[in-house]
């Protein structure tokens, strides 16, 4: 529906990430590199998943349980990859600390580490938004629009943009929570991230029911807000602890 609508949909999905990028990430070149490598890693995970599932596609879209299996395997795979990502990051952190010692500059502060985690999460969110939403937006720049049967009140592009926005929030802040919890060894939070990811994925299954998106999407946003709040609480707790330690 014209260029304006197309750009509008793209900004609905990616607007907050763009704001985050411009305000936080573009200031430090290393964070831009982290963002790009994180996006690449999640793209590779999507390609591997599609490679595994290629033989079974196209799925019969009348039943929902093949999609449930697909979701479950995909989320499990991505969470495993997140663990791997953490291990690689840990090694990189050690190298960077050694480098900082050699050039006699201070080691990475807690805020630096959290910014790297944020960039990693933003990469995950951007990968999701770009591949699930933006790459399908090309027809939206044309003169017409497209509706899906199951969610026929609003155009398909808008629905996918809204869902993508929720997932961007979930992914971005999950990474911060995950990195913090792996660093602290906090088991509850380590479980929080995969559970929220799986729950968010399962919420989208509700979209299978006719008119289900009216229920499914607000629930999805509930997950996103939950992630945001939890991340905010965790970060403020860690920062105040750190500050208290530093100034004592």
């Amino acid at each position, binding site marked *: 529906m014209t260029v304006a609508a197309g750009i509008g949909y793209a900004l609905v999905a990616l607007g907050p990430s763009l704001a985050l990028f411009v305000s936080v990430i573009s200031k*430090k*070149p*290393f964070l*831009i*590199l982290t963002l*790009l*490598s994180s*996006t*690449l890693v999640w*793209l590779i995970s*999507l*390609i591997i*998943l*599609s*490679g595994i*599932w*290629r033989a079974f*596609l*196209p*799925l019969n*879209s009348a039943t929902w349980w093949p*999609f449930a299996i697909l*979701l479950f395997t*995909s*989320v499990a795979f*991505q969470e495993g990859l997140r663990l791997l990502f953490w291990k690689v990051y840990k090694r990189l952190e050690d190298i*960077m600390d050694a*480098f*900082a010692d*050699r*050039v*006699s*500059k*201070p*080691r*990475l502060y807690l805020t*630096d580490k959290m910014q790297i985690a944020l960039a990693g999460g933003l990469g995950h969110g951007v990968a*999701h938004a*770009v*591949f*699930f939403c*933006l*790459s*399908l937006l*090309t027809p939206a720049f044309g003169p017409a629009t497209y509706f*899906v049967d*199951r*969610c026929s009140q609003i155009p*398909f592009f808008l629905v*996918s943009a809204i*869902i*993508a926005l929720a*997932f961007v929030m979930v992914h971005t802040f999950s990474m911060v929570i995950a990195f913090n919890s792996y660093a602290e060894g906090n088991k509850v939070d380590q479980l929080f991230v995969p559970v929220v990811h799986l729950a968010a*994925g399962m919420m*989208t299954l509700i*979209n*299978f029911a006719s008119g289900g*998106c009216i229920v*499914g999407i607000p629930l999805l946003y509930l997950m996103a807000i939950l992630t945001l709040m939890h991340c905010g609480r965790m970060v403020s707790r860690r920062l105040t602890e750190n500050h208290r330690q530093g*100034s004592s």
Partner: protein
Amino acid sequence: MAQNQRPTTFLDSFGEEIIRILTPVSICMFLVVLLVSILNSNSSASVTSIATIAYSETSSDSSWDKFLGALLNSLAFVAVVTVATFILVLLFYLRCTKFLKIYMGFSSFVVLGFMGGEIALFFIEEFSVPIDCISYLVVLFNFAVVGVLAVFMSKMAILVTQGYLVLIGMFVAYWFTLLPEWTTWVLLVVMALYDLAAVLLPVGPLRLLVELAMSRDEDIPALVYEARPVTHHDSGSGENTVRRRVWRERRNVRHDSEDNSNLDGNVVSDSNSTVVAVQHCHNGSIIARVEEGQVSEGNAELSAPLIDHRMNGQDGMSTESLVLEGMGLGSSGAIKLGLGDFIFYSVLVGRAAMYDFMTVYACYLAIVAGLGITLMLLAFYQKALPALPVSIALGVLFYFLTRFLLEVFIVQCSLNLVMF
């Protein structure tokens, strides 16, 4: 709060040079994708050039025929490129540098004037812009002349020079995307292999050129994009200096000028040297080639000798040979990337845009990853390395993986509003 004034970590500027070379590459790719998606409706514009003399693709041929035809086309193109590169090496050996420089200027003028003019004509047709011949010609002529001056005279603002280089890359890349599909893909792969051979084999023309240039301490007349050098205001050393390193060494002391003397063959007489000289010369004396400066406490930086990569872009109008260098390091420590690399990356992404945007994003990430890997290899091996092969290989791989695997998966999930 006392915490506000704590010293900044090295993370603030780590990796800045890489970003400074990534940004123009991304801009060039983005502009080519934009051009391709806007101007693509008249896809009947087929270009006859050296790259299609052996076979012109028609959609009714079988896959095998198309592949064979594309292979013949690409081999013919690479053969012409090899011959032209050897001629260039010969001319450089015979010290005809003036001639080469004039030829470079002429080819830039042709690219900016004729190719740019044709693309502008496409735009005018597409959007029915009301402009008359004479204004158009005057504007085009001025644009092209300023471009030639920017690229070959060193006194222009660095942004103008960089902008014109990106534009030249964009125009040539757009023209390459007008080639038929199979020919484009096979050409990309064959050019990557040629690049690998020409830079790494002992008889490769590019390697000969690099060795000649280094042994003579001269710069090669070439179209090369040099990123703005990173200047560090190091509070520790107390003075503003520019690090100048060619070989990777971690040094905390003033380095010798002897080590620097072979550094400099790569002074590309462009505005970068003037910027550098004006901004930060510690001991004030600006020596023409070698500048010494105190190395600020050792941030190990990427350094590598020049890598040459030549590309001869040809089209039906004239045989032009644009001499372009591959990846390397300028005398001021900034990363240099040859325009040929810009062009082929953009051709890959532009061709991916002709299919769908999902492939564009995937190929962009792949090319950036390839560039990063090449830079790391550069820092590791410290010799001339070709910038094309890794990126093109990854790009082509990701294109086909995305087109045949990812797209089906994503569309299936998205249309049912199932996402994760």
